[in-house]
């Protein structure tokens, strides 16, 4: 016999809402449909209830899939320039050298100058932009967790030294330093851009992790672990870090969006990834010169790609925050 508990009579006092005794059941095969869920399963269910977060994740996921799959069908080669045409199809008076507006053949139009297909540029640009965004954020999270964890767990002069360093890095306008270091040390390679963003992007995360460690190390379960003789390393990795993980995951997710936007700006200025490699920032780089001749589609579509990606990540991050860290408000 299958019967679920009804919450109307939690104390079992047999009031008006109580479950009536079932004849013949005798109580011995009284089954209750209770599934025990672990922390991550609970979070996952909470996440699925957040409509915007699910929408954002699907949006982001489809962009990732497009970035992986589509370049195989629309390969981009910097040195392969399409044969120029004089006029845009269907507009005999137009100059194709300033780019052709979106058409069936070129859904996002063509670029001014070399007349590349904007769709191909956008689709191929997604790869590097996403890799840099995700790679730099993950790397920064690792550094931030290490520095913040050490500072928060050990305290004392180590904490003081590390946090003063974090203070300094946070009081510099970050974009200024990123621009200089990308230009001076980047050399146009996307790997070094990831390093630059990671090495300059960790201080905020370190401060977050430190504050989490500061509260967690005073918790009773840490004290209990220490009392039975658990070593520092095990306390940090088994007892404290898992509890500090949720806010760190949220912050790292949101920082992916920030890195993508900043990298686009750095590359747009020509200080980031080499122009021979397609990124969204590089796609926008050339677009500016053709705005005065009325080419609006070239700057529009790479930018929209950034906006949708960032929007997806922000929705996802908000959902993650609600699911993993329900106590935080903002």
């Amino acid at each position, binding site marked *: 016999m299958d019967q679920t508990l009804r919450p109307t009579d939690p104390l079992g006092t047999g009031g008006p809402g109580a479950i009536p005794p079932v004849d013949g059941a005798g109580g011995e095969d009284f089954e209750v449909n209770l599934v025990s869920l672990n922390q991550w399963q609970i979070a996952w269910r909470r996440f699925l209830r957040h409509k915007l977060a699910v929408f954002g994740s699907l949006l982001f996921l489809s962009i990732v899939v497009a970035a992986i799959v589509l370049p195989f069908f629309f390969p981009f080669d910097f040195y392969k320039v399409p044969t120029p045409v004089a006029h845009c199809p269907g507009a005999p008076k137009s100059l194709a050298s300033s780019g052709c507006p979106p058409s069936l053949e070129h859904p996002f139009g063509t670029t001014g100058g070399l007349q590349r297909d904007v769709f191909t540029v956008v689709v191929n640009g997604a790869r590097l932009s996403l890799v840099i965004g995700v790679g730099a954020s993950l790397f920064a999270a690792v550094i931030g967790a290490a520095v913040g964890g050490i500072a928060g767990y050990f305290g004392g002069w180590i904490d003081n030294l590390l946090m*003063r*360093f974090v*203070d*300094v*890095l946070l*009081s*510099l*306008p*970050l*974009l*200024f*330093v990123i*621009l*200089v*270091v990308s*230009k*001076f*040390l980047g050399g146009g390679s996307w790997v070094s851009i990831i390093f630059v963003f990671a090495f300059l992007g960790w201080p905020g995360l370190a401060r977050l992790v430190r504050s989490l460690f500061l509260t967690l190390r005073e918790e009773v379960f840490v004290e209990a672990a220490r009392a039975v003789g658990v070593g520092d390393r095990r306390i940090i990795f088994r007892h404290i870090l898992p509890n500090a993980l949720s806010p760190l995951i949220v912050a790292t997710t949101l920082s992916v*969006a920030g890195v993508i*936007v900043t990298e*686009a*700006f750095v590359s*747009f*200025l*020509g*200080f980031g990834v080499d122009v021979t490699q397609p990124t969204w920032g590089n796609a*926008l780089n050339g*677009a*500016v010169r053709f*705005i*005065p001749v*009325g080419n*609006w589609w070239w*700057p*529009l579509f790479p*930018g929209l790609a*950034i*906006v949708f990606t*960032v*929007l997806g990540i*922000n*929705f996802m991050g908000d959902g993650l925050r609600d699911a993993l860290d329900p106590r935080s*408000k*903002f």
Partner: protein
Amino acid sequence: MGKYVVRRLLQAIPVLIGISLITYFILLISPGGPYARFANNPRITAAQIEAFAARWGLNDPIPIQYCKWLGVCGEKPFLINALPGGTFEFNGLKIELPGGDNGMLHGDLGYSITDGRPVADVIGQRILPTFILAGTAYVIWLTVAFLAGVYAAVKRYSLFDSSLTVANYVGYSIPTFWLGIMLITAFAAPPLKWFPVSGMWTTRTVPTFGTPDYWAFVGAQPLSALYDLGIHLVLPVFTLVVVSIAYDSRFIRSAMLDALNQDFVKTARAKGVPERTVIFRHALRNALLPVVTNIGLEISFLFTGAIVTETIFSWPGMGRQFIQAVDNFDYPVLMGILLVTAVIVVFANLVADVAYAFVDPRVQYG
């Protein structure tokens, strides 16, 4: 209170030293370093470069060089060097101050590699346009964000509140530089051409900004000068404020919602205090507290936004100068700009902290 201010000032010193170290680090990583100015000059001989290195102490160990750059190490004793130096006239009295070897602490930021002008002059010329742009944007941004956030909190779940939430999400996801590009495409490029594409003044009718001619023009025709500046400001200011308003109005909304949920607000309502008084006297003043902290912290955003906006709109400010300096490897200029902005940010944070302690009597200081 005074004690608290002094303590915060003292705490700023290590941060400022750290900033100077990182700025100096830029010199170390800049390609060519101090010798970059000779890179494209075939007539410079090795002997001349050697003389240059000896004259400017480039053969010293790096810490000594840093100390000299700072303006602390020199021929005079350590502490005296850090004092401002020179001769001053005061009521006919000649005062000789002991310190002041050239160095950053004495306002000597070096010379630009590209045009040889003193960096302090370059910054001095560029700082006013940045303040005009950033200042206008800041006032508009705070006003709009505050009004929108408070209104959305008071009318929670209204149409305005939900549209603001959507607008926040979208606004926060738009890259500032791309917004600027698209605004130019839409409103400055043909066919609309409502606003100028770039720059700060109409070159055909108005003299160059900052020259005596310009101020004469402002004196003669203040209205048309103001109009000309205004029409050039519209798009850059809009670009600069959109993302910040999206972020801030959300922040202010949640601060106001917090305040409206407090017990004393319920008590006030229960007592029959008019809703208007509850909102403006009881809730709003408490919602101001987190806002005050944010105002100082966001000065850093403002400069970052200024770099982006000035580049897109060719606004002749510090941000654009910075980008040009990076492009030309003009490290003295970019070190100078970095130092000036970082110092402004540090002091803005300090002012915000002190203001917070002033506004919120619960903060312990002493």
